[in-house]
């Protein structure tokens, strides 16, 4: 697609945005021409979603300009961005599940007959025409919940079109689609291009970029690394742009000889995501599980721990096969899971610190069922001191602690239960550098004390610095295993779906 003569619909110049403690975007430029597919690529945390949220008007920018059709926008917000033709298709759909396709497309902008009554016939006609033009003729009477995910996505796109969207943002649209559905989506995208709609396509799947993209922009650590024509750039170059920093950080990992196999997972499958996941973790080692969005990392952790059901496969703990695992059983057997979403799954925000610490160890610490406040304080104090939680106030409600300290509290909760296998899901997400280092030090210590640690992370430096072995996941399966010392490029390539 030659963007030479055309004028861009959208120009974002010098966009910057800072959050407390982190510069999410640093003077990023981005533009979009009508009828082009501009792919936006970057690791987790690179700034892609922040940039899009600013474009959607959900966030305010600290600096920079937004220019639509050559006019600098003096005011910007959700309603204005919609009015100017911006539409985002999220991964969680904004559809009313039991209502028909037509009703969802026209939600809030129904056509009326006689000023009061719904003109269903006209709306159905138009809805159907819209979907047909996208190449997806669906019966517009069908309740949206009966459609496949791919079709629901189409309804979302049709909805955007009915609002005269000229800028369409698709965020990881293919993560839940089959191969055939992907092709259908690409066909729809081509039709949209012909209508002159500009599409911002966020993805980390290398194969797709070359198939559907016209230009690609790479962000890293909030900065614009480069914008290229897809035709002029190779996969390796994209990977290099995504990754190419020196790993400056030092990680406190002191490698030790691992012991027996503590956890063995074979052929694990879940209904929606996992396909034949197989790996093992030994005592004394830290095994890293790396993957990008939609790879299936958290699903794996939750399945092992019993939070979600799995349809096939076996889990062996300390040599014993485990059947029908559920969280209480997992805990009693000595597995701990530090969840990805610590506020929702890891902490009890309104309960005091000491309560949180002993929560997973209630049965172990108080086998008789009687809770001794003295023992509770004693245990809590022990771990608060060990983990250096600040401030060491046992009665303070956990919601008042900083992110880093909250994570330490979650760790303390699991340590107090005396685990043998620990699964860390994104252990250092959203915490400051100092706490990060502390958490890594603890993990190292725990491993060397003989525990088996599975570290799930989407942060490449962390994975490379802390893991003794690295598994890479893509699209619900383990696609590679690397020893310590693998290069960033190798890991990212597999994480992005490149085979061999």
């Amino acid at each position, binding site marked *: 697609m030659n963007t030479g003569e055309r004028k861009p619909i959208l120009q974002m110049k010098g966009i910057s945005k800072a959050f407390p403690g982190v510069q999410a975007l640093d003077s990023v430029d981005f533009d979009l021409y009508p009828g082009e597919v501009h792919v936006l690529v970057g690791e987790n945390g690179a700034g892609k979603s922040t940039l899009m949220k600013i474009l959607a008007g959900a966030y305010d920018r600290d600096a920079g300009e937004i220019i639509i059709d050559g006019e600098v926008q003096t005011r910007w917000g959700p309603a204005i961005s919609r009015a100017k033709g911006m539409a985002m298709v999220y991964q969680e759909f904004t559809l*009313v599940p*039991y209502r028909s396709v037509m009703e969802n497309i026209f*939600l809030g902008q*129904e056509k009326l007959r006689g000023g009061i009554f*719904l003109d269903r*016939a006209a709306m159905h006609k138009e809805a159907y025409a819209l979907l047909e033009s996208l190449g997806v003729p669906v019966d517009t*009477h069908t309740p949206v919940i009966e459609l496949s995910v791919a079709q629901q996505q189409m309804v979302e796109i049709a909805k955007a079109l009915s609002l005269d969207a000229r800028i369409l943002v698709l965020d990881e649209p293919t993560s839940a689609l089959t191969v055939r559905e992907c092709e259908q989506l690409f066909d729809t995208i081509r039709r949209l291009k012909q209508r002159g709609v500009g599409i911002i396509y966020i993805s980390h799947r290398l194969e797709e970029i070359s198939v559907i993209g016209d230009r690609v922009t790479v962000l890293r650590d909030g900065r614009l690394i480069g914008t290229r024509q897809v035709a002029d750039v190779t996969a390796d170059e994209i990977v290099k742009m995504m990754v190419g920093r020196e790993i400056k950080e030092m990680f406190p990992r002191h490698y030790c000889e691992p012991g027996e196999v503590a956890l063995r997972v074979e052929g694990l499958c879940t209904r929606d995501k996992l396909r034949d996941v197989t790996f093992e973790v030994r005592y004394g080692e830290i095994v890293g599980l790396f993957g990008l969005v939609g790879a299936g990392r958290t699903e794996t952790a939750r399945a092992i721990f019993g939070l979600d059901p799995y349809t096939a496969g076996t889990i062996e703990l300390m040599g014993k096969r485990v059947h029908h695992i559920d969280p209480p059983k997992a805990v009693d057997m000595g597995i701990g899971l530090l969840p990805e979403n610590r506020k929702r799954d890891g902490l009890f925000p309104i309960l005091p610190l000491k309560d949180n610490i002993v929560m997973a160890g209630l049965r172990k610490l108080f086998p008789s069922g009687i809770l001794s406040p003295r023992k509770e304080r004693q245990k809590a104090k022990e771990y608060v001191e060990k983990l250096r939680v600040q401030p060491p106030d046992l009665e303070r409600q956990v919601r008042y602690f900083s992110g880093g300290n909250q994570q330490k509290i979650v760790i303390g909760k699991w340590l107090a239960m005396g685990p043998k296998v620990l699964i860390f899901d994104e252990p250092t997400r959203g915490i400051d550098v100092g706490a990060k280092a502390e958490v890594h030090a603890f993990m190292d210590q725990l491993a060397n004390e003989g525990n088996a640690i599975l570290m799930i992370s989407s942060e490449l430096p962390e994975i490379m610095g802390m893991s003794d072995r690295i598994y890479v996941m893509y699209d619900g399966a383990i696609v590679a295993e690397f020893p310590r010392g693998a290069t960033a490029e190798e890991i990212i390539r597999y994480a992005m779906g490149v085979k061999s």
Partner: protein
Amino acid sequence: MSVGTRKLSLRSVLMSIPTVVWALLLMIIFFARSTPAFFTLSNALNLFRQGSILMTLCMGVIVVSISGGIELSVGAVMTLAGMVMAWTLVNWQVPIPVAMLLALVVGAICGFLNGIFVSKMGIPSFIATLGTQGMTIGLSLVINNGYVIWGLPEALDRIGNGMLFGIPIPIWISILAFISSFVLLEFTPFGTYVYAIGGNEDALKLAGKPTWWYKILVYAYAGLMSGLAAIIITSRNMAAQPTVGLGMEFEAFSAVVLGGCFVPGRGTVIGTVLGVLFILVLRNGLNVMGIPTYYQLAIIGVVLISAIIMSILVERRLHG
């Protein structure tokens, strides 16, 4: 492939209430078999006339239920509206049309209050309506010191016990209520919004619509229906009792759930009608069979609750 709306409504109704229909048919057959007096025209007419109150109430409750709320105050609001209507008729000699209008207004105001509690104050709907129930029952008791109000003007009897084209007027009123809710939910954008609020309120908010205001209107509408039901019951009894509405909210709730409204955002007016019929037939059948009232309540309660639980479980199995 555009098809008219008729097909969709019927299809979705059929899909969502197979259980009730079969159960209803089974019940009718059972009662018809055991008691000859059941399957007669006069009994049927009786059934519908007695059921007109419940039907009217349900036409309001269904709207609230679809929007995701639980309405426990309809019986009490009906009682209060009836008391006010009777009181003004007896003590202030207002013309009957004015008194009827007053009943509607009282109902709408109570409903509006519910709407404010739920929408603006954020109180969960079951507590809000529970509280309103207590308050309106309290007021009903206060109005005439707990006594029944007698001595209503003769003309009122023509509404409660009169006929129009051979059909009792209460039935006409319930038909009016049915048409009102049916049109509202199926043919107006407001109806779509009610379903949207129940199904995914955020989707509607994102579309820029004032969901808080729609929620208030939903409860006000239910209150209006309660007021309408008050007109029926007061004119039929030719009296206003402060305890008359007790327990009707449970039957209304059951009818709505049986009619297919298992979760917010689902349910239809026609389904609700079938749910009401289920209860009416059950009640009527037990009566005709001569089962003492005490056992009736127990049987009805157990049947309704098991039917509700079964419907929910079946529904979950079908749709996950």
